[in-house]
């Protein structure tokens, strides 16, 4: 059991990244409920190993734990059975109803496209575009070389573009 001072430091250093942890878990698992479970497991692991944490930036350290917990979860729960539950956006409110509808449709389209990406592509997109991590931080989290981050991100963006084109075309036809 961690000491009181250790718990206080944990709360101060790791708890502020709960939102980022949930966001990553939500996108990798594709399911809000499972993301909550994964984040809970991740925080327990983080607390368990917090004594060994000596770095200054706890966010990549925590996201590495979340990422590994997510992929363990994916291996155990068959990725193909993931649901496509909708998440709530955090975009600024558009001014008029027409642009609100358009923004909602675009947001939904991007969400669908990201969910269709393979997990390793989805992971780098989320870490880069949503969590705004550097290539080095992503490389550390995913345990891959920086060059692989760059090529994976390039392929993920290209795939995302194809998916969005497909969704837009089918949207226009519908």
């Amino acid at each position: 059991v961690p000491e009181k001072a250790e718990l206080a430091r944990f709360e101060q250093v790791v708890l502020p990244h709960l939102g980022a942890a949930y966001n990553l878990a939500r996108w990798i698992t594709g399911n809000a409920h499972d993301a909550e479970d994964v984040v809970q497991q991740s925080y327990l692991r983080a607390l368990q190993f917090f004594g060994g944490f000596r770095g200054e930036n706890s966010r990549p350290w925590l996201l590495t734990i979340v990422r590994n917990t997510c992929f363990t979860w994916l291996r155990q729960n068959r990725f193909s059975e993931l649901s496509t539950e909708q998440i709530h956006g955090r975009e600024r409110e558009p001014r008029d109803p027409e642009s609100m509808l358009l923004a909602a449709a675009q947001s939904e389209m991007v969400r669908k496209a990201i969910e269709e990406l393979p997990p390793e592509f989805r992971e780098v997109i989320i870490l880069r575009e949503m969590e705004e991590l550097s290539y080095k931080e992503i490389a550390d989290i995913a345990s891959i070389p920086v060059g692989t981050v760059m090529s994976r991100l390039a392929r993920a963006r290209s795939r995302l573009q194809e998916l969005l084109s497909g969704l837009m075309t089918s949207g226009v036809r519908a």
Partner: protein
Amino acid sequence: MNCRETQELIHGFVDSELGLVWNLEMEHHIHECPS
């Protein structure tokens, strides 16, 4: 630097992740490349 290398590095360039030397190489190629 040739066009193929530029293609490989373009995402790192756009994301400002290449570092000074590669950035300058990329900028040079982008300005000078006829294609």
